[in-house]
Each structure stands twice: as C-alpha cells, then as structure tokens.
C-alpha cells in the first residue's frame, strides 16, 4: 500500500513519526517527509500512525 499525505491538513505535529519513524519524519521546517512511501498492506505500525494523526491528514491506498 501507499501512504498519502493531505498537505492542506497536515500541521506537522509529529505523532506519526513518534509511532513509526521508519516511514514518517518531521523536518526542521515542520513539514512531514515520508521516509518511505510504501508499506505492506495493512502494516500494523503504519496503520497505527495513520489513525493517530490529530489532523486526519494521513491515509493509505492499495497499489
């Protein structure tokens, strides 16, 4: 699956990075960088990070 960031919504709070630093990282300007855009379907750690986003800015799409 592929991780999708809604840049309009993302506010760089960083809970995603805290839960899954292998896929998410906040840069020094506060912008979310996807360290890796893809993950195994249903990857538990990624899904936790997606669900935990306070801005509801993260989603996944099947490839």
């Amino acid at each position, binding site marked *: 699956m592929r991780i999708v960031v809604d840049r309009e919504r993302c506010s760089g709070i*960083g*809970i995603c990075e*805290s839960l899954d*630093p292998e896929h998410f990282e906040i*840069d*020094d300007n*506060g912008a979310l960088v996807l360290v890796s855009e893809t993950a195994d379907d249903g990857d538990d750690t990624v899904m936790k990070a997606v*669900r935990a986003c306070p801005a509801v800015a993260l989603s996944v799409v099947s490839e």
Partner: protein
Amino acid sequence: MTTNSGHPKADDSPFGCPEARRLVVVGASLAGLRAVEAARRSGYQGRITLIGDEMHLPYDRPPLSKSFLAGGDPTALATEQRLLHDLRVDLRLGKRAIGLRPGEGVVVGGEVVPYDRLLIATGSAPRDVGEWAAHPAVHSLRTLDDAHHVRTVLDRVGRGGRVVVVGGGFIGSEVACVALDAGASVTVLEGASVPLVRAVGGVVGAALAGLHGRHGVELRCGVRVIGVRSDDRATQVLLADGDFVPADLVVVGVGAVPATQWLVGSGVDLDPIDSAVVCDEYLRTSLPGVYAAGDVANWPNPVFGARMRLENWTNAAEQGARAVLNALRPASRQAYGTVPYFWSDWYGHRIQFVGTADADSVAFVSGGPDEDRFVALFERAGHLVGAATLNEPGKIMKLRRMVATEDGWDAAVSLCARSSREPVT
C-alpha cells in the same frame, strides 16, 4: 498471566464480571471515541453505548482555542454515519451521567444503563473561579458552545476591543494570540509569578512568557482577580491589589479539574486532592469491570515510575484505546505507559513538550530562553526525563524516543549539537 493468541475473545476471565456483552462508555470526546473504535477493531461484537453530555457529535477540542476561534470550522472526530453504522454505537448525546450504581448501571436522567464493562472518560471541567465567573462579559473555553460564544463576542469587539484573559496557561495564551490577531488589545492576568510551571517548569515557563511581551500582549503575573463589574458604558476586571483592567471580553482559562462529581459515593476511588479517578497500571478503577481514561484518570505511568494525570490530546487518544482493550480482554491486559506529548502554537511559534517537567535541572542545549528557537532538556538523577522545544519541530519526536532511556541525555545533547541552524525568518 495467560496471553491470548491474538483472537478476540469476549469471555477471558474478567474480574468477577459477567462476560462482556454490554460496554458503556461515559464521555463522548476523544478518549471515549478512540475507545469505541478500538473495541470494534478488536473484534468485540457486543453492545456499545456511548453517553455524552453535549448535543454535538464528538469533535476535536484543541482547535477551539486556535483555528476555530479564528473563524475556522469545527473539526468533527466522527460522523453520525460512522458512529451508528460502522461502529454500531447506541449513541446518547445531550445526556449527562449523574450517578453510578456498581453492578447495576450508569444513571442517566431517569434511566439506569446497565454495563458489563464501563469506561469513565468524562474529561475535565473548567476550574471554578468564584462568583464573578457568572458575569455576562466572562466566558470560559471548554466546549464547542463556549467557543462559539467567545468567537461571537470576539467578532464584535475584535478590532480595537480590549480582551482580558485570566490565566496564562496554554488555553489562555492561545486565546490571547487569536484575540491579538483579531486586532484586539490583549492583557493576560496570571495568578502565579511565572505561568505554566506545572506543565513545563519555571525556567521554560518564564521563557515562553516572554513571547507575549515580544508580540505586544501584556502579561501581568502574580495578580489575583477578585471580581468583574460593569456599568452602562464599561466593564472592569478588579484585582486584589486594588487595580482594575478595562475589558470588552473576559476569557477565563485557569485550568481544569476532573469531571467526576457524578462518581462521588459510587465506590470508585477518587483522589483526595483533585478527585481524579484512581487507576492501576491497567487503567482499572477500584470497582470491578470499571476502567478510566483521559483527563479523569490518575494512573502509575511505568515509564517514569510515577503517578500521573494528563490533560492532553495524545494521552486521551492512546489511553482510551488501551483502557477499553484491557476492559474487554483482561487476560491479555497490558500496562499503559507513555511519554507525554503536547503542543501549542503562539504567535506563529510552535511550542512542543515531551516527558515530564518534574526534574532536578533544566538546560538549554540549543538557543536560549530569550530566543525564538530553543531546545531545553530536563534532567532527573542523571537521566533525560523531558524536553521542551520552541520552533524545533524536527527534533521533538526524536527527543520523545530518548526520554527515559538509559543514554537519553547524551543522545539528546548530541542531536542538538550537530545542527547549526539558520535564524528563524
């Protein structure tokens, strides 16, 4: 302790409770909603009743003192469709729980809603400040309805108006920022000599307090409000030292207390000092089958070996989910541990904090207290226990992972030393 192999089972041995067929969640905000979602995701098929005292569908609270107050839309946490159809919730909005009868049910109006497992997630309510809080010019800010009122008045008095914020904590400071943006002249009245001491300690509290003055908001510390009076033309906030401050709008944000009045006499252990629900590490209360999460819960956080009660978004979300999983599957229960995390935005600056401010010493390892960008580390017994940053969004989550680890302090110092930064523009 026996462990399940990952299959949802509703019948693993609870604590003197019948099999969980009826889950009741009291409190329809973030912790309660996350609990409901986690319950369904775990495969729980029984009934879920979600009781909330506001008429609104669950919504996100942090924006109330930020984007919503500045004119944005409220942020829903879940649609009616999702709650009723996807999560199959028996939704009771606009209903206030007024009592708990152990083993029988939650008293809601004239009805008793029976439960096998109960999650208390009633959050917190604004601290009582005295009779002057009832003055028509005075508003608190906890609910969406409160925020609507404040926004309406702010729209009216905004440009050139005089806004007085009582309380220099995060909510009060965020309101001050929005009011300033709206063109008001803003004064923040803080009772303590330094704001935010409980949240971020005195050193960082003083550093953050400096932001107000640098952006044109007057912060007066060590002042006590004793009343608010109005005549035909003006309203004034009266101070204990005899001074008064003119105001078109007064917003009170002096902290919150656990909303547990409805539990008094129920047998649920409440903290003698702040009336929080006393939980164990699994978020169990003193009553069988009854759990608590979010702002109401005082529990021993194993990460720090200390009891904590947290009033932040991150904790409400995580703790709600953990509590309900422990409630529904007690045989595979897990202790809830967390490195606290919260954030706040003032005058376009991002403040972030991880861990605890309960420390032996604080050191600025990047920037300084008078600068618009810094990292401050909190040390206790030689270990990193917390970190506060201003405009360092790229560091805070790395610091969160270092807090309470063996070599956390050295790792944190080295993280901050290797970046030499351009000044904020």
